[in-house]
């Protein structure tokens, strides 16, 4: 009972944060709302016995990355979102209808089907608790998932090179 209360609380925090990111007219508030969402997600990971992921979520996403976001928003001094002219007549209405349609289909799916009808994975929570969270993740990253792990390294490198290319050019 307590754990499901915990879940609902975190789910509400996460969802409200996510909606606020889109709804706030000022980018600064959006970033702050995004931090709230990430904290909510960290709590959800915690309730799934994934302590390591939760801590990483807080340290990397909610702190480091969002700090950079804040820096950038403040540095380039983004004001409030400008009112732009809409491309199509009734664009907002159409968007709302399309969004609601997708939402209702997804809602129906989640209410009607039980997800994970296949067999359970090889690391259910009990086994993870027994082995230790960090150990399992470290082991998996360097054995089963070593290829995506390395490919993500390439991805990060591409990101760095790309950022340098886009930022540097003017001075040359």
């Amino acid at each position: 009972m307590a754990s499901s209360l915990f879940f609902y609380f975190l789910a509400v925090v996460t969802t409200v944060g996510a909606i606020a990111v889109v709804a706030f007219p000022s980018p600064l508030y959006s970033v702050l709302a995004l931090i709230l969402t990430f904290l909510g997600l960290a709590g959800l990971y915690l309730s799934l016995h994934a302590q390591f992921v939760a801590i990483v979520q807080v340290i990397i996403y909610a702190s480091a990355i969002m700090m950079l976001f804040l820096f950038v928003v403040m540095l380039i001094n983004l004001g409030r979102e400008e009112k732009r002219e809409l491309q199509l007549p009734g664009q907002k209405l159409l968007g709302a209808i399309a969004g609601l349609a997708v939402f209702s289909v997804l809602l129906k799916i989640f209410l009607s089907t039980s997800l994970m009808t296949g067999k359970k994975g090889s690391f259910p929570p009990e086994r993870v608790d027994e082995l230790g969270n960090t150990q399992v993740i470290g082991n998996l990253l360097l054995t089963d998932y070593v290829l995506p792990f390395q490919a993500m390294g390439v991805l990060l490198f591409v990101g760095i090179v790309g950022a340098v290319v886009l930022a540097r050019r003017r001075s040359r």
Partner: protein
Amino acid sequence: MDIVYPTIHWGYLLPVILPVCGAVLVLMWDAFLARGERSVIIIISLLTLAAALGVTLGARALPGLAASFGGMYLFDGFTQFLYVVILFASIFAVLIAAAQRELDDTPAGEYFGLILFATSGMMLMAATRNLLMIFVGLEVFSLSLYVLAGYLRARPEGNEASLKYFLLGSFASGFLLYGMALVYGATGSVDLIEIATRLHENPASRGAAFLMGLGFMVVGLGFKVAAAPFYMWTPDVYEGAPTAVTAFMSVGPKAAAFAAFFRVFLSAGDAGGSFDAVLWVMAVLTMSLANLIAIWQTCVKRMLAYSSIAHAGYLMVALVASRSSAELATSGFLYYMLVYVFMNMGAFCVLILISNMREDGSTKLDNLAGLASFRPGLAAAMAVFMVSLSGLPPTGGFVAKFHVFSAALNGGYVWLTVIAVLNSVVAVYYYLRLVVVMYMREPQGGEVRRAPHPGWSYAAAALTLAVASTLQLGIFPSSVLDFAHRSTVFFN
């Protein structure tokens, strides 16, 4: 706890590792070069790509199930053939970038480094049966291409292209990822073979969640291959990006994303049955819209952008046909993809040489008027590519279309074939119009007679290779067709 290492066949991973190492080497080397010194960088890039191509062609493909990293890396015949396609595309991308005047003043190390990184990403995406790797590979090449699209930062169109591609591309990646999450939720696995078995064993997993996931994945992959109705970004991005990047973007991502498309839908089997109609409609829309709009274009670069959408439509026909005649359609797709590399890259190469001749670097159709009278070789090469793109004999384009369409007929998609053939007829108009303009109209003047670009020998090599291969694939297709047929067995 005991540590179990996965099986790794390092030799088969070499074609992916080489471009990554080449990219790092190029980036480091560039730091020690004088400004404007590019030839070392270009040669290193070409050598790494050629080495990767050599390793790929020399390797014997493993049977479908003998995979490295528990299925995350798969070097089967399908992979091998697509590696050849992707590596040829990047070799061309390097060659023609070396000859593009607009890119002369831009930093070379990052440019060719990003091309090589993008190559490895495409290869990873094509060589896996794991949804996770499909996504990682896709992001590696997408991120490189977002930057490359805006490489000429002085041009506002370039910035527009880069931003548009980045925003819409990230949105599409989100759809793809959400789709993968739903498929994982429904089946409990991200491995396509595992997914196929669970769908087979447990009918409950074929429910709405799985179908919705598959639908989102169609959106994400459809964006990457520029299929209707997700093609809106294509003309602007292709027009705004540097021409050498446009050429690469119109071929490489298609090969990688279609590979994922084929693998996903072939493993979904009957469970993906409700998508037959969706893919059918997408194929028809893509072909017809692109061809109809292409007729009205007066800018050759934009026309080639719509042409590349139309070709995505023909490839969609192969995808639809693969639902009922898997082997024929898959080999048709592979052959088409290879021919497409040569004819499309060749056409873009000619376009670059033509825009080099002008001060403003424009690519209007009128600029090609009378090309045959003052650049007969260039005009003849362009004519070969146009004939091939429109699918007339004796070029590779004809053989490729023939195989894809006969696979569709064989699969019982009569109407789809009829529409595809009609579309090819429409396309003949705008491809051959270009030939008519080159041969029948008087030159307009306005070309600046400049000294040949220092990279002209690269362009000459690219053109020779492209013309020879386009004709060879059209006149003596049998050995490559055999290779394509042998490459179709992947899993099941």
